[in-house]
């Protein structure tokens, strides 16, 4: 854990508003981006991301401080919260994810095609396992390295290599033959 993280954790334990605000400002966008990639709904992503920080605060109070670095802890917790959300959603299905998925890459030309492609990819992504989704979100949504991804997923690098291979193969099977070049 870096010195900055230790300092931040001390501030969180002391409930120092400035430290709390600084930690939030530093990591919120990153956590939000990860959650948005996973759930595909901006409002839900905002709610889950802000819940993650409340959990961090509560965790720091009860002495269950992050064992790795703060960013890793936040993304890992976000992943658990997302998994919980999907578990609840499967038990009580409400609406299709695709309906609320924003046009994530709005282009001026070929907008309709882009939207269609997004829908196909989103539907394919939703069919992957939780671990496969997590690996793709970290590697391609967040742009994390193999090592960072492995640390957050608490796996070794080789396991992540295999996981990303299977995740991409599964995604391609679901998508079918589409040229994204």
């Amino acid at each position, binding site marked *: 854990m870096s010195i900055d993280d230790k300092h931040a954790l001390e501030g969180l334990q002391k*409930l120092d508003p400035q430290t709390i605000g600084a930690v*939030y400002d530093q990591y919120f966008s990153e956590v939000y981006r990860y959650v948005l990639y996973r759930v595909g709904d901006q409002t839900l992503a*905002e709610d889950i991301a802000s819940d993650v920080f409340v959990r961090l605060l509560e965790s720091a109070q009860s002495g269950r401080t992050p064992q790795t670095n703060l960013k890793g802890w936040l993304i890992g917790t976000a992943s658990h919260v997302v998994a919980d959300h999907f578990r609840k959603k499967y038990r009580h299905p409400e609406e299709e994810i695709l309906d609320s998925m924003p046009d994530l*890459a709005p282009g001026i030309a070929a907008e309709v095609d882009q939207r269609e492609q997004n829908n196909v990819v989103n539907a394919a992504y939703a069919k992957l396992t939780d671990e496969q989704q997590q690996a793709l979100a970290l590697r*391609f949504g967040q742009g994390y390295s193999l090592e960072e991804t492995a640390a957050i997923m608490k796996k070794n690098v080789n396991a992540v290599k*295999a996981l990303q291979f299977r995740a991409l193969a599964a995604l391609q099977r679901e998508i079918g033959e*589409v040229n994204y070049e």
Partner: protein
Amino acid sequence: MNNLYDLLEICLQELENGADVKTVLARYPESADELRPLLMASIAARKRTSAQIPSPEAIRRGRAKLLQRAAEIREARIAPRKRMIPLFQRLAISFTLTATFLLSGTGLVGASSSALPGQKLYPVKRGWEDVRLLLTFNEDKRNSLEQEIESERLQEVDELLAEAEHLQVDFFGVFTSKDGAIYVSNVQTIFPVGTQLPIEGDMLHVAGWTTDKGYVEVSSFEVLQGALISSTPKPISTPTPVNDEETPPTQPIYNSGENDGQPTEEDTNVEITPVPTDVHKDDGKDKNEKDDINKNESESESESHNKDEVEKHNQSNDKKSRESLPRFLFCGKTI
């Protein structure tokens, strides 16, 4: 197979560094057929989201939520909540109120659950909250019920602002400021100019008026610091007794937070532009005069005079006085 995993990773890194699929695959012709669909899928996965950033509003909401939670934890740590009403009296009051509600019909409570300040069923809603608090003896459950009620107050203020109602409100929340605007939890507020503003993260008890401009004009507030909670929010200016919903109290000049609550020379000239900028522009002149009067009064008259007026105001038989006096909220203190 291990080699293929490694090859894929090498190809992915090359793609990330700007190479195109054809060039990358040309380097590994023997595995090209297997790698191509995977690289295509990786491009799709990367395109799935462009650099998405949360909206400023979302960032502010999340920040306020976090600081509110911090303030709640801090407050629970510093001041163990004390019951102001002895157990026997609580039981007696609970019994009486419960009987009243039951006799008045069970549908009444349900119907009042979405009532807003100013509506006929609103006193029923607040009364029922008091009953629930009185009947909750478990400390943890009581704390969570108090938090639920505080959230309900904030929700009501939100709805009144959405409906552009002009009504007196009071609520609890965390003081935050962002980009020159002041918020108490999620509610945008403006404070009278010259007010010593609280510090970021302070838990406040705020009394004020909703406006049709999407914010609350604060007429009085109190910083809640555990055991130091006083019985009445600190009045900022001499309030005017409320006889008519359409008539706001004496309007002080409002502070957007840009001068950090420090009085400036401009304060006396009423040229300070609050945030939002069009506050009271219609009655700017009147406001000047009123402000001068307020200033003179507050300087020349003792603080007890203000308190007397607040007390008189609170004790008036106006039905809205029920709304201006949050009872049993926060730390179990009668406020």
